[in-house]
């Protein structure tokens, strides 16, 4: 019931806004030749970015799962950080490392080696991997943690080689988790706009989202915008359909929550491999973020008052959006464990073009209220919707397991409704719920929301203030605001993630 309501709300938001734009335009418009090129580039870069992110995440997640070292927990938490950075901040961080005047090129210059360029398709992919590798790692790590330790104990008892473990335990888990993670990333990259444009190097790197932007903003061709939005939804559905055939529900059975200490596999080569995977990921992810902080922190204290007010407003929006995300994601994830269509409904916002979403909402709400008066509620609603697919993706493996392992027992005991939520669902899902809440809060914190259409200057959020500072030449203040944004986003993420981890200890 709750799931059906949540699914309807999401469908109404995603398809309703698209419909509103098409309706206002009086139909769909013809696509131009350049749009087809944009679609091709969009799909290709998303394919490469998603595949690289997902594959690179495998050794990192495995190493993190089977090794224990000081700072491991902190590193896993940090894994959430890049994904939640606003594009403009992340790009600045990446440029500080990989840019023409970045550390890497400075290093190469000292060694007398030729410079490398981040601009072009390689830059787009690099940035997308930077954003999404950590997300993939976290999703896979959850998959690893979901394999009951009894199974690893069994594997150890049977003297499984790492290859055998991979085949019998990790392989099936990856088969269940990897397509979902890949799909989520593919869809994120599909709607990428600022990253592709900033690092793409030129018009060859045009994404569908940019074409939509252009259709809205310069041509005011709503019909073409609606067509492009529909094309984007169609691509998403095709990707969902393709992965639906690969991804299989997990069948590991339940463990007993025993905390067995795993003996990590021995052997010099494996140790080196794991160490290299962890070190490479850590450097790749942390250095750009550190660069943002290093530039921004010194100016932090000098930030003007409105920026701090905006930060408070963003926090409130993030918390409200998180509550809404979870209220939508939990029933959907529970229902999706049995019926795939709920998973589809919850994934849909991923491909909704934020521009179409914003414009459609504007068209729908404009007759009833001044857009500026709705700025914060609409931002909350849209941020919640955009975070929903990630929350759902995080919860889904756990709800599937919950359903497979305990639904019979719960039913035989007549455990239903609120009691079931309190005694079974929430405790068993605490960990993924915490992660989902952290992700939602941070995403909402960093998101520009429904862009400028609803913006109210008196109620600007932190990302909007960041842009305002940049627009006013105040790059040093902007850098400080960026590091504040990063710190707050990450702080929220860390807090929720930690609550989730401790709740079921």
């Amino acid at each position, binding site marked *: 019931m709750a799931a059906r309501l949540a699914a309807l709300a999401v469908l109404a938001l995603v398809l309703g806004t698209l419909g509103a734009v098409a309706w206002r335009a009086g139909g769909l418009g013809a696509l131009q030749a350049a749009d087809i090129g944009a679609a091709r580039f969009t799909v290709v870069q998303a394919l490469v970015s998603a595949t690289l992110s997902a594959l690179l995440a495998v050794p990192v997640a495995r190493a993190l799962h089977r090794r224990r070292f000081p700072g491991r927990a902190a590193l896993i938490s940090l894994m959430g950080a890049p994904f939640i950075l606003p594009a403009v901040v992340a790009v600045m961080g990446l440029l500080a490392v990989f840019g023409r005047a970045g550390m890497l090129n400075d290093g190469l210059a000292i060694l007398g080696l030729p410079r490398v360029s981040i601009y072009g398709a390689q830059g787009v992919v690099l940035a997308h991997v930077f954003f999404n590798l950590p997300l993939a790692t976290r999703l896979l790590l959850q998959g690893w943690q979901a394999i009951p330790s009894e199974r690893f104990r069994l594997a150890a008892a049977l003297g499984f080689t790492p290859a055998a473990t991979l085949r019998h335990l990790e392989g099936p888990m990856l088969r269940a988790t990897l397509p979902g993670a890949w799909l989520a990333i593919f869809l994120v990259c599909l709607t990428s706009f600022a990253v592709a444009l900033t690092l793409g190097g030129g018009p060859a790197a045009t994404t569908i989202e940019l074409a939509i932007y252009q259709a809205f903003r310069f041509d005011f061709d709503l019909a073409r915008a609606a067509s492009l939005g529909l094309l984007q939804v169609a691509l998403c559905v095709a990707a969902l359909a393709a992965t639906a055939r690969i991804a299989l529900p997990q069948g590991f059975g*339940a463990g007993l929550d025993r*905390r067995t200490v795993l003996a990590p596999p021995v052997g010099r080569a494996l140790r080196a491999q794991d160490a290299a995977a962890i070190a490479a990921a850590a450097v790749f992810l942390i250095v750009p973020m550190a660069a943002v902080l290093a530039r921004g922190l010194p100016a932090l204290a000098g930030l003007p008052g409105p920026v701090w007010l905006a930060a408070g407003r963003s926090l409130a929006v993030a918390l409200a959006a998180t509550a809404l995300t979870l209220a939508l994601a939990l029933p959907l994830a529970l229902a999706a464990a049995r019926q795939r269509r709920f998973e589809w409904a919850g994934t849909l916002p991923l491909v909704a073009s934020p521009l179409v979403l914003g414009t459609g909402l504007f068209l729908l709400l404009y007759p009833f209220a001044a857009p500026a008066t709705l700025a914060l509620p609409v931002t909350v609603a849209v941020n919640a919707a955009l975070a929903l697919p990630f929350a759902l993706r995080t919860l889904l493996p756990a709800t599937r397991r919950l359903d497979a392992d*305990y639904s019979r027992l719960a039913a*035989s005991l007549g455990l239903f409704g609120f*009691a079931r939520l309190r005694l079974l669902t929430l405790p068993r899902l605490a960990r993924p719920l915490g992660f989902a809440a952290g992700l939602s809060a941070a995403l909402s914190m960093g998101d520009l929301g429904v862009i400028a259409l609803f913006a109210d200057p008196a109620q600007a959020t932190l990302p909007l203030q960041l842009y305002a500072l940049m627009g006013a030449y105040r790059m040093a203040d902007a850098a400080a605001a960026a590091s504040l944004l990063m710190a707050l986003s990450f702080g929220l993420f860390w807090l929720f993630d930690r609550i989730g981890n401790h709740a079921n200890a």
Partner: protein
Amino acid sequence: MLTLENLVLAQDDFRLTANFAVPTGARVAVIGPSGAGKSTLLAAIAGFFTPASGRILWNGQDLAPLAPGARPLSILFQDQNLFPHLTVGQNLGLGLNPSLRLSAADRAAIATAIARTGLDGLADRRPGQLSGGQHSRVALARALLRARPLLLLDEPFAALGPALKAEMLALVAKIAAEANTTVLMVSHDPADARAFAPLAILVAEGQALAPRPTAELLDNPPPPLARYLGH
């Protein structure tokens, strides 16, 4: 009395029919080759498997409209009988009140059940800290607390050693006798069946046959059972 009235269970190419009654208070073994449908039969009675046709009645009442938890029965599965994140006491409390709002009387009942099943001092442990035998005892103690007139055992003791298993079966027999509980027990071990269940249902070749005296059935097994028993 449990009545299976022209019951047909079907899924893909699996098919099982049953048409018989089990008298109240009887202890009945459900025996037969692997894959014949013993667990499916219990799942249907418990409400986890919807029959293709026919009815399942308890004392004349059709169970079809009742959700699993509302049926006059308790079921013990092969595994996953306990929630690992809840303590023994909480797992037991679920048998009395699924929202765990327990009265003083409930707590007293739990304490009694703990004592009767030999779980003293373990109320605050979690399942991960218990042995296999203790797991079974907790599950049994919860069935005791639920005090339903029908108890379905889907091989919950299969993983226990012979002595422990015998001990658990004796405990079940004792508890069942006191409350005149009807027990259906899936078993792979003829000795268990003989020792525990005066009656037995043979499930084989698409049919569940009416209960017959266990000894008689095992001494003169029909061909499919004979093959299964290795005679």
